[in-house]
Each structure stands twice: as structure tokens, then as C-alpha cells.
């Protein structure tokens, strides 16, 4: 679901920045070298200084979704731990003008920190300039306003590791198939940064690391509304596939439906992002073998920690990335918690029993 939400923003990001993960490493939107988010820690002195500061924070989101909820929840928890009060949170509904209004509005509460995901990096400078001028510490998710400089204008960018996600999907597929077999590859056939990088990383992992696994069927998907037709065609033409990679969970459900309709219990599916029906199939021993997800909660924790640290004078690298996790039948509980900081939905918990 996150892919769909991120598509317009990600496209702009790609066009503006040319960020790239296809060469084996995820780089920041301005070509920054990634640093692991977990490497960011605060000393006891820094934490004490932050707690004594009576600081406040505002969360200016691009839109609300399950992903944003997890990021929001991570940020809230970390701010609470550090004695920082969250005074406002907003949802721009992916509208840059509304995000500008939101920034202006929250400034009335004089927050020390603003965490935000810019709707449109190319034009975000005019959105955040009033906050920057007011001396508010800015920390961003996924991208930064064009023209802003790390350290001078903002604290850091926190994102997920796109290459690692595709790579982990490749490894999960290999594990599910015993490192051999024929694969179908359903990729997002559109010029979108997030999905393109993840898809390419999967393909590259299979082609380079697993000589006994072959992608024998490739199918691009430009319109999710047509995913069922595409899945149906692929399954009909290639009934002997051992595994199918699907670019994200929503179209993967169409592939699952097509496999079920064909009575196929053999072909395994690996896809990206957590999704309740797909996870339910996985724990019930169906076709779904693994779901690879990012640690969205940790993105919020890290952004909050970096921004709070800056109030105590701590310097943070320009681009921090969180880990991704391959969630399988055996790790679904832990995976759900690590990604979204939530317990698995009741239906899945019941199926595990």
C-alpha cells in the first residue's frame, strides 16, 4: 500500500535527485552514503540535557496510512521517552499547499522540532522556510527540500533500505525453494523510484547469487486494477512456476487468487510490505512464502532521536536507513512487531495457534 501512496512523491524525488539503489547500495536522495539507523544513540548526558530542556515537537505528515501511523507511533514513543511533548500533528493529504499551511499553523505553538515527510521535495523549500527561519530543528523522512543543506538547514533524512528490501526478497525466495527453480517476476512497470529499486534489487540478487534459479516469466504491471488479469495470464501460461515475485502485497493478492483458482498449491509467492490477507495465507501454509517489510516504527524513532539529539548539540549523518525484515510463517509475530510495532491482527494470531 505504501508504494501507491509514495508513487507521486517518489517519482518527483527520482526526477529531481536521480537517487539510485540499482548499483547494490541504497543512496540518499542527494547521493548520500547510508548509515544504519541503529548506529544513532544518545549518551546519558545528552538525554539528561534533552529532558531538562522542556522541548516540544510537531509532526507534519504528508498523509496518514498504516505506514505513517507506524512512523508516527515510533516518533511519539521516542519523544515521550526523551521528555519532549508532541504539541501538534497534521496530515497534508499529499497536498503541498496544505503542508505549507500546516507548517505555518504548527509554528504558532513554537515547537523546538518538526518531523516531516515533504510532499514534494522539489518545491518544499517554500513550505519549510518559515520553520527554518524560526530556528526549528527539522528532521525529514525519505527526502529533503531541494536546496536545503544537511546540518545547516536540517538534521538528517531517515529512510528505508530499498536495495536491502529487494535483496531480502530474493534471499527469502531462495530459502523457500531450496535455491533452485523457475521463477515468475511481476514488476512495477512504471517509472517509480521506490518500486523500481526494490524490483531491480530482487532480480539482481536472483541472477547474481542463485545460478540454479531462473526467471522464466516476466510481466510488468502498470495499473494495479489490472493485476488480476496479469496474474491470471502468467499462471495460465506458466503453470509450472516454482515461485513468483510480486512487486508489492496488493497485487500479490491477485496472484494468490489466480493460483487458488487454478488449484495450484505448489507455486510460492514472495512480496513486499505487510498485508493481513497475504500473511494469513502464509501462516495457514498457503502459497505465500514471505513478506519483506521495512521497520517503519524505527524510522519514526530514529528521526525523533536525531532531531532531539541535535538540541543537545549531537551531529547526525545526512542519511540514516532502517533495516528491513523478511517475515515468514515462523517470524510473523516478531516481524509485525518490528515493522509496525503492533501485535499481529487477531485473525493471524488465531491461525498461528
Amino acid at each position, binding site marked *: 500500500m505504501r508504494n501507491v501512496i509514495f508513487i507521486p512523491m517518489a517519482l518527483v524525488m527520482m526526477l529531481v535527485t536521480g537517487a539510485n539503489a540499482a548499483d547494490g547500495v541504497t543512496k540518499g536522495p542527494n547521493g548520500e552514503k547510508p548509515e544504519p539507523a541503529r548506529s544513532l544513540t544518545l549518551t546519558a548526558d545528552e538525554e539528561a540535557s534533552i529532558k531538562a530542556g522542556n522541548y516540544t515537537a510537531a509532526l507534519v505528515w504528508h498523509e*496518514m496510512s498504516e505506514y505513517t501511523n507506524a512512523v508516527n507511533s515510533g516518533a511519539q514513543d521516542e519523544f515521550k521517552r526523551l521528555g519532549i511533548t508532541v504539541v501538534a*500533528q497534521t496530515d497534508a493529504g499529499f497536498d503541498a499547499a496544505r503542508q505549507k499551511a500546516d507548517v505555518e*499553523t504548527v509554528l504558532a505553538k513554537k515547537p523546538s522540532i518538526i518531523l516531516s515527510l515533504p510532499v514534494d521535495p522539489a518545491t518544499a523549500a517554500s513550505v519549510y522556510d518559515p520553520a527554518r527561519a524560526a530556528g526549528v530543528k527539522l528532521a525529514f523522512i525519505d527526502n529533503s527540500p531541494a536546496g536545503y543543506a544537511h546540518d545547516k538547514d536540517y538534521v538528517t533524512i531517515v529512510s528505508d533500505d530499498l536495495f536491502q528490501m529487494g535483496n531480502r526478497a530474493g534471499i527469502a525466495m531462495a530459502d523457500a525453494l531450496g535455491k533452485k527453480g523457475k521463477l515468475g517476476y511481476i514488476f512495477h512497470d512504471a517509472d517509480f523510484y521506490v518500486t523500481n529499486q526494490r524490483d531491480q534489487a530482487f532480480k539482481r540478487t536472483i541472477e547474481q547469487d542463485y545460478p540454479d534459479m531462473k526467471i522464466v516469466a516476466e510481466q510488468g504491471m502498470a495499473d494495479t486494477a489490472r493485476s488480476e488479469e496479469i496474474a491470471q495470464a502468467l499462471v495460465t501460461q506458466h503453470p509450472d512456476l516454482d515461485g513468483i515475485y510480486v512487486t508489492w502485497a496488493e497485487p500479490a493478492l491477485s496472484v494468490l487468487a489466480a493460483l487458488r483458482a487454478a488449484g495450484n498449491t505448489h507455486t510460492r509467492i514472495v512480496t513486499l510490505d505487510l498485508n493481513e490477507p497475504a500473511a494469513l495465507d502464509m501462516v495457514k501454509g498457503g502459497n505465500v512464502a514471505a513478506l519483506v517489510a521495512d521497520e517503519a516504527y524505527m524510522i519514526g524513532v530514529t528521526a525523533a532521536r536525531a532531531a532531539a539529539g541535535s538540541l543537545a548539540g549531537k551531529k547526525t549523518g545526512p542519511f540514516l536507513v532502517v533495516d528491513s525484515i523478511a517475515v515468514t510463517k515462523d517470524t510473523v509475530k516478531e516481524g509485525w512487531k518490528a515493522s509496525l510495532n503492533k501485535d499481529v491482527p487477531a485473525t493471524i494470531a488465531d491461525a498461528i495457534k
Partner: protein
Amino acid sequence: MSNADLAAPSLLSRINLQRYVVYIGFLAIFLFFAIVLRDSGFLTVRNLSNIVLQTAPVTIMAIGLVFVMSAGEIDLSIGSIVAVSALAAAVTIGQYGMVAGIIAGLGAGFVIGLINGFLVAYVKLPSFLVTLATLGLFAGVSRSMTDLRSIPVTDSLFTGIFGSGSLFGIPSLIWWTVIAIAIAHIVFRETRFGAHVLATGDNARAAAVCGISVPRIRLAVLTLSGVIAGLAGLLYAGRLQAAKYTLGETDLMTVIAAVIVGGTLLNGGKGSIVGALVGSLMMGMLNNGLILMGLSVSDQMIVRGFIILAAVAVSLREKNR
């Protein structure tokens, strides 16, 4: 029962409460936030001026919709017109300069409004369906115009006039709001055109019998609404110093709510420009106050929904009496 007791209801009934519902509601919400958020910056000049600035494009769009709804029609396409106009202006300014950009932006609104008007007035299609279709159609056009890209507007004179600058210390958006409201109010209340719009919305057949060209009025209000939405697009582009296909997309419901709360009837025949201004400011104040109250995003939406529902219910009940 004394004479005074008997006099009370008759005095109340003489006061046309309906006319003041939006003002009373506005004042009540203002007082509520002023008390609850007295320490949260709500009453600062900066914050109050932000509310006016942020609602300026919505107010401008609401003006066009008052004319359309008073004539008994609706224009849902304004959300898309804003983006198309802003993008047309931004692209043209980059190539041919400010004047050409303004003409392109307003021209785009004019053409879309004209298409809506023609289909409603002369092909006799319902405005709801026509503008619903053009809303989707031009949302697609705005996306394809620049392949989803944002277009920066770097002409400082344009951004100064349309949103970022000020004159005599007053932000340009406030000038636009005041001037647009003043002109629209005069046209709506004092001219023959305004009277014909109301007559058409009240009873189109009767208006036609009286010699009013109903199709021409319908064409005029929808074209006017298109041009005015185009102006809102220019204001967004000036304020954001950029244009993007998402501009105005989320404003449609806010504009409709502002116009209805402000005393304009959905079925036509009655409208208020000043009421729409107050309705629009009320919507902006609600967004602002609920954020400053520190509510979660979901809670903001729920509370806003309830308040709008209550405001519309009171407003419509009063009118239907």
C-alpha cells in the same frame, strides 16, 4: 401572562436569525478556540493572519460557487481547474513571462468553465454530472501536463502579486480576498446580472417567462466559476512558488461546505458572498484550532466533520423555515 411575555417571541421572530447563523457560528467557534487555546498561540496576530492567508484560495473559489449555486447549478470541477490553471501559468511564465502566464492561467479556467457552461446550458446536461466528469477529466490533464512534475515559479513579481508579497504592509492574498469579495458582492447584490442569477436559481421557468436568457446565465456562471478557480490556481502558485497537479484537489468539499454554511442554498435562488467569506474563514479557523489543540489527525477529522454537520444542519434548517 404580561404584555412583555407576549412581546418577546414576536420580537425574536422579527429578527431574521437565518441571516446570522454563519456569523453566530463563526463567533462561537472563535470564542471557543480563544478560550481553550489562549496559551497556544491561537490569538496571535501571526496565527490569525495565517488563517486568512491559508483560506484565501478557498474563499476565492467559494465566490465562483456562490454564483453557480445561486443559479441552481453546481461546479465540482473547480478542484481540477485550480491545478490546470496553476500549471499552465507556471509553464508559461517560465517560457514567456508573467503576463503570458497570467493569461494562460486564467484562460485555462475560462475555457474549462466555458466547456462546462456550454454542456449544461445548451446540451442540457445536469451540471452535477458534467462537472463531475470534467473534474476527473482535467485531473488527468493536470497529471499529464508535466508528467506529475512540480513546476517552480521563480518570477518574483508574479509570486509577489499572487501570494507571497505585500502592499502597504498587508499581504497580497488579503488584498485579493478583499477586492474579490467587494467586487463579487456588488455584482451579486447590485447588478442586473446578480438578480438574473438569483431569479434563474429560484425558478428557471419563471425567469425565462420574464425574459431572462436562462441558458446564457448558466453559461455565464459556470464560465465565471472557471475563471475564478483559475485565479485561485494563480494564488496557489504564487504562495507556493510552484505549481503541482495536487493543488486544489482537497479543497472541493471545503469550498462547498463554506458556501452552504455561508447561506447559499444548494437548490439555488439564494446566496451570500460575505457569508461564503465567513464560511471559508470558519473552515480555516477550524483546521487551525483543531491542530493547535494537539488532537491526533483522526480526531481532527472526526471533530471537524461533526462541527460542519452541525453548522450545515442549523444553516439549512433556518433557511427551510
